[in-house]
């Protein structure tokens, strides 16, 4: 009986939805606080993100007249399910390497697309011009950054000759973190840029563009459904950098205090970089972002693949 409940526990409580969600909201606060300090503001108190979610949960949910109700409600849930599963797998393969399974790398890669898919479905279902523009921009962005993203994952696969997380982590334990190699550092840079787009942060917050299309997909969402989107974003803020750490920065070790400190510092460095980039850039136009990803970013990704194939 307990054995059957175990995966449910992994997914919903630890290390999945609840754990990643609570931690993600905390780092969301770190993000807001540091951004505020950069902008010479005071910033919110530490519990602000929890309070936001709590407040949204008991607010009325308004479903716009004429929208596609089923997709409108299902969209945020799809996103949340995807990110919970992805987060659970990333944590589990690191905590217990035998939890890894063949092709889990590919699975995680696809699960990370689900939150973007949720935005596209939700935006298209909203029957609001701003939301539809948001959905179409999100779609363009996914096309733009997925190609270099897949290429750099290919770099990791070529280097370790495996599509299983366990092998990638073991490889790094034996040979040192992948970022120390030429191909690894290029791949990490590309991953970081794609991560900014995945998190929908400046300069790539084009699908949300608060000052142009008032939040895009989120324009029509309210109450619990909006809370789910916000929670998904918070979990992304934790899970995507963890994916980067697992692939290129030597993996996650939570078995010792030293490991936890190391993990926290790796994560915080990435987070601070994310915040710095996002608060020192204006928003690009969608065509400029498209050119950027399919031009220089993809070129760097290709170079990284070639270097990996050459064994550098």
């Amino acid at each position, binding site marked *: 009986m307990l054995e059957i409940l175990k995966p449910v526990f992994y997914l919903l409580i630890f290390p999945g939805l609840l754990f990643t969600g609570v931690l993600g909201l905390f780092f969301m606060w770190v993000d807001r606080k540091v951004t505020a300090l950069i*902008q010479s503001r005071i910033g919110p108190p530490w519990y602000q993100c929890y309070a936001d979610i709590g407040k949204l949960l008991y607010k009325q949910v308004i479903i716009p007249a004429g929208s596609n109700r089923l997709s409108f409600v299902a969209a945020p849930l799809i996103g949340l399910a995807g990110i919970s599963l992805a987060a659970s797998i990333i944590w589990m393969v690191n905590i217990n390497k035998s939890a890894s399974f063949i092709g889990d790398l590919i699975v995680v890669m696809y699960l990370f697309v689900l939150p973007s898919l949720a935005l596209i479905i939700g935006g298209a279902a909203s029957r609001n011009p701003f939301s539809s523009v948001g959905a179409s921009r999100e779609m363009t962005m996914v096309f733009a950054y997925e190609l270099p993203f897949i290429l750099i994952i290919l770099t990791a696969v070529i280097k370790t000759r495996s599509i299983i997380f366990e092998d990638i982590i073991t490889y790094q334990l034996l040979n040192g973190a992948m970022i120390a190699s030429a191909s690894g550092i290029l791949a990490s840079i590309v991953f970081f840029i794609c991560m900014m787009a995945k998190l929908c942060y400046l300069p790539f917050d084009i699908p949300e563009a608060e*000052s142009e299309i008032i939040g895009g997909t989120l324009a029509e969402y309210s109450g619990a459904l909006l809370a789910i989107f916000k929670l998904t974003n918070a979990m992304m803020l934790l899970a995507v950098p963890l994916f980067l750490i697992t692939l290129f920065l030597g993996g996650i070790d939570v078995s010792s205090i030293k490991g936890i400190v190391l993990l926290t510092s790796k994560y915080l460095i990435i987070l601070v970089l994310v915040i710095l980039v996002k608060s020192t850039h204006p928003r690009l136009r969608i065509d*400029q972002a498209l050119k950027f990803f399919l031009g220089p970013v993809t070129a760097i990704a290709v170079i990284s693949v070639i270097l990996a194939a050459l064994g550098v």
Partner: protein
Amino acid sequence: MLTAKEIIETLRTKFNNHIIKADEKVSNQVFVRVVPDTLVPLIRFLSKTLSPRFLINAGTDLVRQDGKYLVSYIFSFDSDKIFLCIEVAVDAAAPDIDSITPIIAGANWSERETRDLLGINLRNHPDPRRLVLADDWPQGLYPLRRDFPYDYKPPSEPQNKVHLKKPPEGTKVIPIGPFYPVLEEPAYFKLFVDGETVVDCDYRGFYNHRGIEKIGDTKLTYNQICFMAERICGICGFIHSTCYCEAVEQAAGIEVPLRAHYIRTIMLELERIHSHLLWLGIATHIIGFDTLLMQAWRIREPVMWLCEKISGNRKTYGMNLIGGVRRDIPHQMHDKIITVIEKIERETLEVIDAVMGDTSLHVRLKDVGILTEEVGRSICTVGPTARGSGIPIDSRVDHPYAAYDRINFEVAVESGCDIWARTLVRLKETMESIKIVKQCLLEMPDGPIMGEVMEEIPSGREAICCVEAPRGEAVHYVQTGQDNRPYRWRVRAPTYPNLQCIPNIIKGERIADVPIIIGSLDPCYSCTERMAVVDVKTGVEKLYTKEEIIKR
């Protein structure tokens, strides 16, 4: 360099029989009365030979005096520091006049406004639709006529709705407004787009009329209008009250003490500093650069405190009166002002450095929203919008007022013609303003702050004044009258000409760039729309819902 006499001479030699009178009523302000039929040939001649810049036209109801409406076309000879006012008196029985818009594109709105408010019919106007009046304002009712009571509330006639242009073949309509997230005031741009590219647009604004001019010549007194004028704009109000006061002072020949001139200059420049920093914040917010927004507004805040220390208010200082100012800037405050200003100078320099070096800003702002010098001149754009396109006009130099004839400063002109050029102009101007404030504090003489004002300001005089607001020049035209109030007070805010160039500069641009292009003009709709008689807001909104219900 031309003189007023030469201008009169030139016009006399060419149109002698048609000129009723021509004189220099105020120094460097020429008023020429011509017969109505000569108007178009004369203006064609002017624009071909001397090519003055059109500012505004104003209509005055003189029916009680001589059964005529007076229409005045105000021009500026910028480098010669001269205003020229061509006046035409049309018969009240048949108030028709030939449009000059085919010659001067920038006269478009102004002529329609005169038609809407005074009922002067326009012949050969390329776009004679209703401009200023509300959609449900009755036909044949003209609020600026003297027999129209200022508090009359006419019945609603929804059938008069203005019909915006139909989209050209193969284009879709994208609405920007009437309320749009980043453009905080009501204005409606109907964009016609082909894919992502804007093909054309139409504009409907003037949702925010307050009937200020009407109240000015029926209800308020000379000194009350100073405070009303300051409320024309929420950002650059002091500009309007200064401009009004200077116009009345010039018309009546009132001597203003030098110290009052310096105090006006200081307040005007403080206003420019905080307005430009405000704009920088909004513009960067439009393109999502919120860090710069927060920093620009943080730097701006001490200016507001400073203004509060000086005048008692962050905004709307209430310091101007005919003949001088009401509040002194005592010596004890000079150090305080210098400290604040120097801190702002340091921080603004840092921001300018950051802006200049930010390549991602260049990507969004360079080569976007091109306003060529030619278009800029034909639409008669003003202020940083014009100076960003290489048109070197600045009324602080061209028509010096307050203490500007004693101050050394540079006029920032850029030739880039794009948003980036307009940004550079504003940043440079902020630094110049800081210098001007410092220089004023150093050179300000002691003395009274209020001049001798006669018991009764003589009636029948007129004068024009231009004041360089942060957005461009504001123009006030005053005809003095009886009962201690002007007979006619005409206001033109800087956004009025600037907004008219929007169809030109968004043509061919992408939709995502439209907000920042509109934002780059620093538009201020409420200043532009100071003119109808009743609050039409609710009426208009009701009408729209009705129409929409019928459509469905």
